[in-house]
Every structure is written in C-alpha cells, then in structure tokens.
C-alpha cells in the first residue's frame, strides 16, 4: 500500500493548525491534519458540544472569531483530517518527514509522509509538586476544563482551586455555572504582586480592556455566588489517604488551615508542547517564569530545522487568538516556500496577521506577568514530596542522587540514576522541577543544563500498533 506524500502535515487541529490549513489548502497544497481529538477545535474549543458558549479568558468577540475559523477549517475541501490519531513521533526522511501516526483506539499505526511539517501542538498544564499532589482528586485546570467543556460534567462536589493563573477565575465561573461548589479560590500571589504586574503593563491593560472586563465579570459573579476569593494564600498540601479529603491552605512556610473538599484544582500556568520539534533537533528556549521549552521560530514561523514550521502555543503560551495568527503566518510561509505564492504576495498577506500578533502579544506578556508562579511554586515541595509521579521519585531521592562520586550534573544523567522522567509522560511532568533542582545545586541555569533528551514516542503507543506501521 503506497501512501501519498502530502505537501504539508499539520500536527494539531487547534486555532493555529486550522488557520495554517486554510492558507495552505487555499494555495493549492495537499494537506493532512492529525489530532488526538475526534474533531478539530484544540484546547480552546473542545468539541462536542460545539455550540456551547463556555466562558474563557477571551471576550465574546475573540470567541466568535475562533468559531468562525473552526467552521471554515471544517469545511475546507481537500483537507485530510485524521482525528483520534496520536502522532507518536516524527522522523526525518530524505524527502521530508515521516509521521508515525497511531489511532487512539490502538488500531495499527501508519506512516504519513509529508514534505513539510507544521507542529501546532498547543500547551499543557504546569505541574507543581506539593505534598499530597498525587492523590486521586487533585486535578489540573486542564483536566477539569476537559470535563466541563466537552462533557458539561462537574467532576466532583467541593473544589478548592489554587494557583497563580487568572484562568482560575474562568474555571471557577464555569464550575459554579455547571452546578459545582467552589469552597475556595486561592491566588498564591499577593495583591501587591498583581498590582505591580498590571502597572508594569499598563499600556497593554488599556489596549486589552475587553478580556480584562471578562475576567472582572467572572470575579463579580463568583463573589455574588459566595465563592471566597483570597490572594497571597494557596494550597500548601493536600490531605487524605486514598483520595482528597481536605486542602491545607495558607501562606507558604506556615502550617495553614484545613478546608474540607473532594477535589483540588491547581492552575499555575501552562507549558508549551514542544517535544516533537525538539525531537527533530529544533532549538527551543527555556521559559523563565514557568519553565518548559518554547520552540524558536523565525518571522515566518519556521523552526531551525529545514521544512519544519511551528505555530501556536508550541512556540510559547500567548492565548488562542495569537495562536490563530501564528498559524495563519505559518500557512502563508508554507505556500511561499513551496513556490505557490511569491515573496511579495506572502509579505502582503502576512502584514495584517503580524500587526494583530504584535498587539496580542502585549496582552500575553501582561498575563504572564500577573500569573508568574516563581515566588510560590518552588516553596511548596518538601523532601518527601514526589517530584516524578510516573516513577514515584521524591525530592530527597533526587537530592541524594546529585551527591556522590562524579555526581550527575545534567538532567539526563540524573534521570538515568533516579528514573525521574523515565515514565509514561516522557518527563513532561517533572522536567521543569528537576531542572530547577539541578540549577539550585549547580548554580547553572536550566537552559544551559539542558532538559531530558526528547525521545520517540511523545505519547505511549502499543508495540503492535507501531510494529504494524511497516505493513510490508
């Protein structure tokens, strides 16, 4: 069976992937898009139900634009969409790229060949190790939203939400609207820190009044609903034997008080999903505030590997509208590099998306500053706290391994000794924490230390599915 070689393969059907597909298909290129989800939409428009209007940190206008984009992308003639398909990895081939695509139902995998590749894989929740965080009932904001958004289901009774990211407001608002109880909504940063961040980006705050107003509206609604909202306090530890029964809440360094709950939601921010580009050797930079790797792109969203493009939150977390503009630029760049449009036409087409992108990045910088988790997140883990939850490796074990004869001084060597980062999640969950710990010990910054070596596959996939990819 010989499969076609597409002009472009897109990993991710979020706003970035959709916008790129529209441009590339429009330029007459053959395009295949792969996504683990059944339908396009990405994180922001999880489907179904797809007519729903859940709150987001976007204002209504931003939302409408995303939905129009989605409708156009779903109607694109000639776009091959492979849903419920994980891209386990991408390997370089003479003529471009070979994607190892494995259906999420464990059916045989296949090799999808493409001359160019766009990775628009989005972002994931920043894990913050704290005592008890591996108990069933502790969830990331993303996991809670996945229930609320795509299934309209409240995954618990009494929630304590904690973190530094403003998305928490939206999440609490959604939970309350869907019938859940939010026992406390905790912003770990002090009101002073928030004011300082806003003041530092006053211009952006003024230019982006609409999303701020949306956040303020959520805040007011939550207050009216009687949800206690506090600043400068967070979840210090989660209590329970087999599942969550309470959250210990207070100021880091103090004992805190217990608040009864059956769910704890943590929301300290998001990390770019950059493992596919990194596994291809593309340069990524360390994100100072949250940790994680943002793939480096040029002004045309090209990564520094020939034929590779990156767009959306794979390049850094900046919100859905920015992801969409980056995707558009990437699609124009692919059309240009494939010789379908000339440089002048590409420049003209990209001018407006670039202007909007610059504007949107101002808001992203503001959000980043407000959500800065650094002052808190490193103060929560004790020595017995598990840092790598796949392999149950504690902070004390990591510290012990970093002593001794010719002690490991980089992430891969520490991983080899302790197994931290060797589990199912490929180290996505603990890499940032491991690097911070090494940086503390060695005085060398995380970027210079370098993360775990990115490996195939980026998702666990059945042996037989990959074995059958050959099919010859």
């Amino acid at each position, binding site marked *: 069976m010989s499969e076609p070689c597409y002009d472009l393969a897109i990993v991710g059907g979020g706003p970035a992937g959709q916008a790129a597909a529209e441009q590339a298909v429009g330029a007459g290129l053959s395009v295949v898009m792969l996504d683990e989800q059944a339908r396009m939409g990405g994180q922001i428009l999880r489907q179904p139900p797809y007519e729903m209007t859940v709150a987001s940190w976007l204002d209504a206008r931003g939302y409408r634009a995303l939905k129009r984009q989605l409708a156009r992308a779903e109607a694109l003639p000639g776009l091959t969409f492979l849903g419920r398909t994980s891209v386990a990895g991408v*390997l370089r081939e003479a003529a471009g790229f070979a994607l190892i695509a494995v259906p999420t139902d464990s059916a045989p995998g296949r090799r999808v060949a493409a001359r160019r590749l766009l990775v628009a894989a989005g972002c994931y929740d920043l894990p913050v190790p704290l005592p008890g965080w591996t108990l069933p009932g502790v969830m990331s904001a993303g996991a809670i939203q996945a229930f609320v958004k795509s299934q309209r289901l409240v995954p618990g009774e009494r929630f304590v939400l904690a973190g530094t990211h403003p998305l928490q407001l939206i999440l609490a608002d959604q939970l309350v609207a869907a019938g859940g109880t939010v026992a406390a909504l905790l912003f770990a940063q002090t009101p002073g820190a928030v004011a300082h961040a806003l003041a530092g980006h006053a211009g952006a705050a003024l230019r982006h009044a609409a999303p701020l107003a949306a956040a303020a509206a959520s805040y007011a609604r939550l207050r009216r609903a009687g949800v206690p909202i506090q600043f400068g306090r967070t979840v210090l530890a989660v209590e329970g034997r087999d599942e969550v029964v309470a959250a210990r809440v207070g100021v880091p360094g103090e004992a805190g008080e217990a608040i009864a709950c059956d769910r704890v939601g943590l929301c300290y921010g998001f990390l770019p999903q950059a493992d596919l580009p990194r596994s291809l050797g593309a340069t990524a930079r360390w994100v100072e505030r949250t940790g994680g790797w943002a793939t480096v792109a040029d002004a045309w969203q090209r990564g520094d590997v020939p034929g590779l493009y990156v767009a959306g939150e794979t390049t850094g977390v900046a919100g859905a509208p920015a992801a969409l503009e980056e995707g558009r630029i990437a699609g124009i760049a692919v059309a240009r590099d494939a010789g379908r449009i000339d440089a002048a036409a590409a420049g003209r087409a990209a001018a407006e998306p670039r202007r909007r992108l610059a504007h949107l990045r101002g808001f992203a910088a503001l959000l980043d500053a407000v959500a800065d988790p650094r002052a808190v997140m490193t103060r929560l883990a004790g020595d017995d706290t598990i840092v790598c939850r796949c392999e149950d490796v504690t902070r004390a074990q990591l510290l012990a391994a970093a002593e001794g004869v*010719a002690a490991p001084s980089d992430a*891969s*060597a520490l991983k080899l000794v302790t197994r931290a980062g060797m589990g199912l999640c490929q180290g996505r969950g603990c890499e940032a924490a491991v690097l911070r710990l090494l940086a503390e010990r060695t005085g060398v910054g995380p970027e210079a230390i370098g993360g775990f070596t990115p490996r195939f596959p980026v998702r*666990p996939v059945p*042996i037989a599915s*990959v074995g059958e990819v*050959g099919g010859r």
Partner: protein
Amino acid sequence: MDAADVLIIGGGLIGCAAAWHLARAGTDVLLIERGELNAGASGQNAGSLHFQIERRFLEHGEALADQAARTVALSRLAVSEWRDLPAALGDDRLDVAMHGGLMVAQSDDELRLLERKAALEARWGLPTRLIDGAEARAIAPYLADDVRAASFLADEGHANPRLVTRALAEAAASAGARFAPQTVLRALVPVSGGWRVTLRRGAADVEVAAASVLIAAGAWTMAVGALAGVHLPVFPIGLQMNVTERVAPFLPHLVQHVGRRLSMKQAHDGNVLIGGGWPSRLARGEDGFDLARAPTVLVDSLTGNLAVAAATVPRVGALNLIRTWTGVVAITADQLPLAGAVPGRPGLFVIAGGSGFTLGPTLARAVSAEMLGRSAGDAAEAMALVAPARFAHLNAMLA
C-alpha cells in the same frame, strides 16, 4: 604537574571497572570522562548478559563463526564474573538476574542455524541445550505458538545498565580512585617512564604524568588512539533500543532470536526492553561520522524490531511503547573485542569493541591484571585472541 600511576580515559562500565580493580590493588588511579559517568554506551545498552554465540557472528560465514566460538572461554568467565559481582561490590541493587536465556527459531532455516550454533558451542564447552518448541513453551509459556525450537542456556540473563557503572565507580572511589568528569583528553605523549597527558577541564589545560594509560573510550577509541599516534581499529555503529511501560513480572528470561534481530527481557523495574542490534543512523559531520550528536531513530528499525518482538512474544504487542533511544557501540573489523597492551606503545592499553556490557567486567579484570604485571589466569588464552597485537600490521608503518 599532577601525577597518577594509571590514567583511565572514559567513564563507562569498562573504565570504572578497571578503576576499581586497579585501585583495589593499590594503584593510584585517575579516571577522566568527557561528560557524565555512564552517559555513553554503558548507560544506553540493553543490559543483556548473553553468553550464547551471537547471531551477528553466524551471519557471515563459517570462518567468523569459528573465531567467535573461541571467545566462548571469555563468556564462561563472564558468567562467574556476573554471578559474583553484586557480592564483590557489596551492592545488591545491580538487578543482576540470571534465570536463563532462550534463543528461538521459527522457520526451517532458523532451526538449522540454531543446530549449527549449538554444535559449535558444544565443541567449545558451553552448556547450551537445544530444545523443541513444546519444551521451550514449558520453560517460557509466553513464547508464540510457532516457535519451533530454542537453545537454552541456564546462565543467561540481564543486569541494570543504569546502576552497574555507578556502583563500580563508587567502589573504585572507596578504594581511592580519583574521578574527573567534564574533562577531555587533549594530548597523549610518550615520555620516558610513561605518558604525559594534557587534559582540558572547563577552559583550562592541565598536564598529568602517568606511568600507564588505559583507553576505555568506547566508540571514541579510534580518535583517542590517534592522539597517541596509533590506529585502534574500532568502528562506531549506531543502534537503537525500545522500552515498554512497567508491567507485573511475566518474562524472567533473556529472549533472543536466531534468525531475526531480537533481544528482549523484563527489567527489574517491570519495563520490557526490546532491542537486538537494529541500526540507528549515525550523525554525519563535514568529514565523517559525528559522534558528538546522538544517532537518529530509523523507522524501519523501529517497526521491524517491534514487529519481531510481538511475533515472538505476542503479549508484548499489547504493551505500550514509552521510549525509543539510540546509542553508539564500538565494533572491530573481526567483531571480537580489542583488549590488552597496544604493541609498540609501552604503557598504553585499550579495551573496546563488542558486547562490552556482558564481557566488560571480565575484560577489565584481565587487562587490569596485565597492567599490574600479573597473569590473566584462566583468561590468558582467550585474552590472547582479543589482544591488539592482531592488528599490529596497521601500526607497523606509523612512527
């Protein structure tokens, strides 16, 4: 100038094992390593303790197979070396498991190959047992129904490459060996009474006087040899490995395939390791292979290896693959190890090539003895077979 009785170049299993033997004997040892300990092949390998003749020796005609068979003596020594290692190191965390190994055959041709191999092994005194499919499945119920036969060797097994090298390093350090990680060899100059060595650590060069030097630089052996002005004909080969998620123990043996590339075992942690000599692609630089960059995964090796694994042990097909990685192994032209004194270069020794995890501790012990001027004992005859002297012709015309 710093000084040491022995300078060891390379912090893999072999360098660390030699450091342990030499330091225990009262030698002042300095081991240098370019990066981190155990970051080379020693930390990337499959951890197989395989003592049956490897299928790579059977692929290239009788002469090679006969020659390989003569290293069976080394394998026999390696069996006792591994059995004793945990106790000798006082470390029970090396995950040494020697519950037997099966090399299976599925087709007629493979069956004939297996018989030929077993005959060779019998001739050289390796107690391999040829068994039929039913007996193989009685020992290893997880094997596929179409496994026709297997050769079984009770001593085979595996150990944990994550832990062994560091355990050796700890033992060596306790015996007084010094370790200098993040230190690269820059120059190796013969002087009267030994070698003058230039090392670079950070931005600074340091000089060390060493009475003798052991090159334990794995795939980099050829480049290190060049610094000493000799050809050490060891070639880098890119390999790749796969590992599954952790599952409850079900596969206590080492499983290999005589006709298709496969080695498989379940590690102590529960993961199933799948390899067997499938190639990865070495990075290429301006003027040759670039060993500073990791080899890249080859799709055909990936799918081929996993297909053989699932065909041999069907249960494995349902497990999740969580990681594939590449590593570089060093191979000589005749596929035998290269271990012992380098002719014409007094005080220079090398250990490289081949299945250096299985044989590494044994080779390190024997060459350490040679460096100490002691007899290699039981190993003497086999060590003659792997001595660098067999490539002396390459260096006859080098000044």
